[in-house]
Each structure stands twice: as C-alpha cells, then as structure tokens.
C-alpha cells in the first residue's frame, strides 16, 4: 500500500466497520479495491462541500462511475424546468427587502419560510417599497407564522392542488374563461381578486419547494410569473435544496458541462436523469458498487444494502457498509466552501469546532491515488 496523502497531512481516519479497523491505509485500500473492481460504480449522496464534489467527479472519471446527489427534487424538477423552458428567480435577501408581495405556493414554502425565518422581517433597504402582502396558494390551510406582512395573510385554493390553482390564475390573468368550479373551491371572484393582487404588486416573489411539485407544475408556475412580467415585476424563489444540492450541481455544471446525475463511464460526461439515477442503478442491479458521501448527510439509504458500499459519513451517522470512513463536516470540523442560501452564492466557511477528521476531498483523493495505476 502506498503512503496516502491524508496521512502526509497528519490527519487521521476514524474507521467504523463491522470489524473495527484502525489502519487508515487499509480502509482506503479496501475502498479503492471495492470500487476499482466494479463494472459500474455509483457515487451517491454527495452531501459535501465544493472540494468534495470536485474530488468525487475526478474519481468518477477515473473509474467510470455515475454520480448523483440526494437532492433529487432539485435536479429532476427545478433543473429540469430550467432546461425545459427557463426560469425567473431571485435571492432570499432581495426578496426580503424588495418584495411587496410574497406568494407562498404549496405547503413546503410555508414550512420553509417558518423554519428558515429568512423573510421574518420585511427588510428596510428600500423605503419606497409599499406595504408587504403575503398570499398562500394551495398550502392546505397552512399559514406562515414567521413572514413579515402588513395586514392579513390572504389565501386561495387551500383544498386544491397547486397545479389547479396556478391554472386558474393563469387563465384569469390571460382573460380566459374557466370551467365549472368545485362547490367547495374558490369562486371566480376570489380567483380574480388574487390575480389582481398579483398584477398589482410592484415586485412579487413566489416561493415554492421543488419537493411539493412535479416538473409540469413548476413549469406552469414559471409561466405564470413570466406572464405577470408583461405588466409588472415578478419572480420566484426556490426553497434551497437539502444537503448542499444546489452547490453540488453547480460544481458539476462547470466541471462536466451539466447538472447531476451524470455518468462518466464513456470517458465523457453523459447527463441523464433516469439513466444515472443512483437509486435506480443500485436497485435494478445495473450498478455493482456504491460510494456514498454523507458528510452533510443524508445517511446511507436502505437501498444501498444491495451492493457493496463504501460510506463516508459524519460523526454519529449510522451506516452499515463494507467500508465506513468517518469524515469531517465542512464548516464544523474543517473549513470548506458551501452555498449560502440567503444570497444563493458560495461562501468560505471556517471550522466552528476543528477536529482532526479528514475531509471528503482528502479521502476521495486518497482512494483515487490507491486505485491500480493511481498516482499517490
């Protein structure tokens, strides 16, 4: 076994396996051997910082792996709609200060607004902004407790699916007739009032969680926003993808040319949501090895048990895998670059509680170096 780089840095690997292992080299070697002999390896989870994703893509190129991220709604819904028909978006901070109408579309938007509290105050940079209205569309009765509003929160279609509410609004905004309405649903007057409220906003922001919708619904939502921009300014705000999904997909885009999932088995990247879906590859038996990256979560999924797995997990994570390597958490045990959801941008984050645990990038780089023909 070659000497590995992470030991050169004096860092330590904590190894958890069914048979406790104290030799970091051995864990790396076993991980490399497991992945190298695979016919179709997969890298999944990918909850890690920028350098971790860069290292994972390099390793994938070396072993011909498919790479996917756990934030599948971000990839299969948000990024699909972007590629299908385009999007209008803004940042949390711009919405906070400039929006005179916040539209929470779907229950996930309400849950996020209350959890993140990013819109809990109305900002104050633009004193000319009018009063802030808040509107709930198809939220199933959920109302935000932590979104700043001048006046009461209005709502439409609590008992309707979001796609139906969006369709009704688009029709009325386009001065089209609408069909018979359910007796327990909104009447035309209520729909027209909400349409007028949206048209009357100077800068409206519609918040939506990709986990709430399919790509057709999100496409319709974006279409509604584009329609509104003929007369006023309106845009959208996506609930941030979990486990650093936004950042991982951006790194993939500038590295491979496109978002995740991506396959590198042909010596060049192939983006395909179905073909390179990590869960599908593993559960169908097409893949025969998995490298799960969960420094920022999530835990190794149950479906991973069907293939030999190397798991890179944070302290305290439960993992059952052939090789389990404990890694540090970027921004906690070691510094790293992560996306900052407030302004949808990358930020360098220092370690809050430094510990001598290796980063995902260090471990993956060591695995790549330990491959047959690798360069330590």
């Amino acid at each position, binding site marked *: 076994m070659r000497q590995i780089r992470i030991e050169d840095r004096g860092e330590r690997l904590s190894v958890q396996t069914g048979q406790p292992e104290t030799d970091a080299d051995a864990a790396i070697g076993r991980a490399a051997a497991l992945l190298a002999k695979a016919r179709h390896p997969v890298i999944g989870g990918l909850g890690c910082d*920028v*350098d971790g994703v860069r290292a994972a*893509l*390099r390793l994938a*190129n*070396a072993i011909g792996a498919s790479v996917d991220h756990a934030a599948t709604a971000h990839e299969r819904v948000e*990024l699909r709609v*972007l*590629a*299908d*028909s*385009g*999007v*209008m*978006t*803004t*940042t949390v*901070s*711009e919405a906070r*200060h*400039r929006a005179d109408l916040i539209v929470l579309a779907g229950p996930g938007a309400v849950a996020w607004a209350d959890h993140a509290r*990013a819109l809990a105050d109305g*900002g*104050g*940079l*633009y004193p*000319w902004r009018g009063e802030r209205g808040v509107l709930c569309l198809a939220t199933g009765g959920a109302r935000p407790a932590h979104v700043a509003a001048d006046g009461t929160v209005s709502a439409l279609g609590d008992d309707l699916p979001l796609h139906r509410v969006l369709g009704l609004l688009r029709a009325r905004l386009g001065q089209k007739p609408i069909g018979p309405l359910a007796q327990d649903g909104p009447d035309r007057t209520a729909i027209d009032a909400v349409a007028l409220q949206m048209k009357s906003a*100077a*800068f409206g922001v519609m918040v939506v969680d990709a986990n709430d919708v399919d790509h057709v619904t999100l496409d319709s939502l974006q279409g509604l926003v584009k329609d509104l*921009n003929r007369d*006023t*300014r309106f*845009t959208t705000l996506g609930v941030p993808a979990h486990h650093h999904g936004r950042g991982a*997909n*951006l*790194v993939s*885009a*500038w*590295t*491979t*040319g*496109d*978002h995740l999932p991506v396959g590198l088995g*042909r*010596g*060049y*990247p*192939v*983006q395909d949501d179905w073909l390179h879906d990590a869960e599908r590859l593993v559960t169908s038996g097409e893949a025969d090895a998995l490298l799960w990256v969960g420094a920022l979560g999530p835990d190794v999924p149950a479906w991973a048990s069907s293939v030999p797995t190397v798991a890179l997990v944070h302290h305290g994570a439960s993992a059952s895998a052939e090789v389990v390597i404990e890694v540090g958490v970027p921004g906690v045990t070691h*510094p790293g*670059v992560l996306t*900052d959801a*407030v*302004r*949808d*941008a*990358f*930020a*360098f984050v220092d370690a809050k509680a430094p510990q001598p645990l290796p980063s995902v*990038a260090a471990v993956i780089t060591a695995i790549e170096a330990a491959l047959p023909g690798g360069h330590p």
Partner: protein
Amino acid sequence: MTTIRLMGGRVVDPVSGATSVRDVYLVDGRVAAAAPVGGAVDETYDCTGKIVMAGGVDVHSHIAGGNVTMSRLLLPELHVSETAGPDGMPFATASWSGWETGRLYAEMGFTTVVEPALAPAQALQTHLELADIPIIDRGALTVVGNDDHFLSLLRDRESETAIRDAVAYQLATSKGLGLKVINAGGPAAFHSGLRTFELDDVVPHYGASSRQILTTLLTAVDQIGVPHPLHVHANNLGVPGAPKTIEETIAAAEGRRMHFAHIQFYSYGKDAEGMMTSGAEEIAAALAAAPNVTCDVGQVMFGPTVTISLDLMKQWQGAAYASPKKFSLTDGDAEGGGVVPLVYARKNWINQLQWAIGLELFLLSPDPWRVLMTTDHPNGGSFTTYPQIIHLLMDSGERARWIEHMPQKARERTALEEMTREYTLEEVAIMTRAAPAKILGITDRGHLSDGAVADVAVYDDLTDKTAMFTNARYVFKDGRLVVRDGRALGWISGRTSILAPDVDGQMERRMADYITDRYGVGPAAFAVPERAFGERHVFKVEPCLT
C-alpha cells in the same frame, strides 16, 4: 535553470521589434533576448517556416460565474459531449466545461483570458470556476454601478472620496482585475419596472442618472489607479441609433480613458423608415476622434449561441427573440443576470448585417491598439471562431466568399463589400496580444520582449488562416510546452490576476454594517480567501497605477 530555444521562426511581435527570422529563448518561464551566457539549451524547437507570436490575450470573454453556469444548465441540448478525452486530462472534452474552455483557448495559442462580469455578491463562485479552467491565466472585471449601496452614495451626495473607497472595497474584496459598469443604472431601474434607459434617464428612488453613474466611476477608476480603463457596457445595446449613445458617452467621459465592450452591438444606424443600417462609419469616426477610448468589437458569427449579460433590461427585451424559446432572468442582489439563447442565422438579413458591421469596424479601425478582437463570447459567437475572424480580416478573398451569400437587403446596408483592407500579421499580433495586455495593465505579457512572461504561440505559416490559428503547432505557458501539434498535452494550472488596492478602514466598517443589514451575514461570507482553494496557489497580484 531551464532554457528553451525556439529556433529560426519568423517572430511577429511589433513590441520587441520588426518582424524577422530569429531565435527566441525562454529561460525559467521568461522570454530572454538572447541565450544565457555559457548556459546550455535544454530543449530546442525547430520553428523554421513558422510564425512565432506571444500568447493571445482576450479582454472580454464570458467563461466563468453564475450566469455562465446558468447558461450551461439552460441549454444542455447545445453542448452534448460526444468524444472521449485523452488520458490524464479529465473533462477535456466535456462540452462547455471550464476544462474544455482552457484546452480550446490554449490550442488556439491564447494564454490569458478575462471574464468581464464579476458580480461582487457572487465573486467566490466566479473565482472557483476560473481556478478550474486549466492551462491559461485568467482575470475578471468587477461589476459596479447598479447596486443599492453605490446608488445610495450618489443619492446622499457622498464625497468622491467615499465613493472611491466604496468602489475600491468592492474591487479588492471581489478580487477583480478592473472595473466594469453595465448599462449604468439600467438594471437597477429594471428592478423598479422601467424597460428603457438612456444616458440622462434617472434611476427611480435614487435620483442618479446614468451619466452621473458613469462619470463617477470614471473618476473612481483613476483615483484608485486601476490600470484598465473603466470597462463600459453602454446604454441601448442592440438599439438602432445607438451610435448616438456612444458619441454622447464619449463626450461624457471628457477625455478620460474608457473602454467600450462589444461595440458592434452599438453600431446600428437606422434609415428614414427606422430600419437597421450599418452605423460602423459613425462609430469609427467617433473612435478616431477620441484617442482616450478603446473598445473590443464583439463580432457576430453565425450559428446557435447564448447571450449572457447582467443587463437585465436588455435581456428581458431579448427574451422575446429567444431561440429556443426559453430564457432565465435572475433578480440578484445588485447585479443579477439574464441568459437568452439566440441563433445568428445566415439567412437572416439582420444577423448578416450584424456580422458585416463587426467586420466593418475592424476594417475601419483607426488603430489596432484601440480596437480589439472579441466575440463577446458567447454573446456574438464562440471564442473558437477567432481563427475565422482573423481569416476574414487578413484575406479579402475569403470575405468576398462569405459576402456572396449575403441577402441583398443586408448588402445594401453595409459598405463591407467595398472594403479592401487586409490585416497584417503584425496588426493581428497587436490586436490579439499586445494591445489587450496593455489595456488590461498586465504588461508582462502580450509581447516577446526581454523579461516577458514566456507565453508563446508558434503557428504554421499557412494561407488558410482559419487552419493556421485554430491549432497552434506549439504553445508555451510560462515557458512550459502545453500544446503540440494543436493538441493540449496535459493539465497545468495558471493564475488569476487581481488588483489589491488599499481599502480604507472606515469604509470597511461601513460596508460591514451595510452587508450585515442587507444579508444578515457578515462580510466574511463574501470574501474570496486563498484558503477557499485549498493547496492551490491561484492569485497573482498586479500593481495599481501610482
């Protein structure tokens, strides 16, 4: 000490002397006028019959940052990867990746490229992407002038000193190589619902006109000592009649140095019926009369492409012409961005006229030191069309072959057909090497003088200039062979050139307060620290003017 001898090539470098057949020595990464005394030559490359030039320098090419990556995500169908790359060069053929960008530039003999839209709120992403572009050196221009903080300083009639300090802060913290303003005030006005913006229009709620923003920044650039003149994306991009805007903007500069980006997009006149005609002569005359002004052309070339701009107002207007029918528009903090795909079609007379106007500008250029070659990549076309552009400029016969296919409606609106000028290799060397390096203030490159950075491109001397400039025979980066026979040999990492102006401590505190109020996070979240790049040594600090 490593000494490389480039033997017997025809050296085209007007900075170091007249074109002549001579040897060029590269010693420890620098050009040497002669072989080291008593020093052995480690490697010799026979350049007999070949053209030796400095590595190319691109002053304006959108190669990195949030909007560039947005274009990757918006248009997967335009860049499907289909070819496996060579061993040891991961992602070399990953279409539209940063890795492919570095390889393709290097294979053409370009060794330094500047990204012209570094938004301060997104600076780290731009620099992360730049650092992943291999082989070439990079730089980026910090975009200012449309953000609430800056406009508030104007509204509050703050002093020149305060504005200088605020701009210096943005430049330093974003690690820019220069400063750029985009449709001064236009994007801010678009946030408030305006859809057009002229030089004397006023940004709602701030009381600041576009002219005031422009002239304030011209002053700040000089006071900070930024070597590159203010990089100006003027008002009215793409509007017939925009030559008047350019003339008014030149007048507003009152003799101060200024660089117009992609001036072709402003060179559209209009006839009595309001139809588009060439305004190239008017622009060329304005440039000839203003020696303080430089520009890059932003040549249009045919085919599908994507426009990437922080000019939200223009991109919203352009979205109606998107092909395919999709676009993205980001209302960012201060600077956002719009991405709109377009097809420049050979059968479209307006697109043909745009193509012709760009070439007219080159051929009417009063000075190759002041009119630079760009396509505003990818807005006018890909940077990979540079060899074709050089061919069109050096060979009137090649131009005639292209003009044959021009629709009559376009032909009668441009004087291109009557132009006989052919660029010389010396003019090409100035326009694509020496001049952009000089204008950017990175004067250790773009030429082959003693002590220059050993970035060198060696080309076969071919009649077919497209073939000649598409694949360099050899390219050396910092004295290291990186391309042979038109193919990159492997990955090395270049540097990103930045300025590090002094930042006033009081302004730092004011900015920290503002940033915390606006974002709820401190200024550290916006920083571009070396540590973000791990063990990589990314940045090279260039001197400010004193």
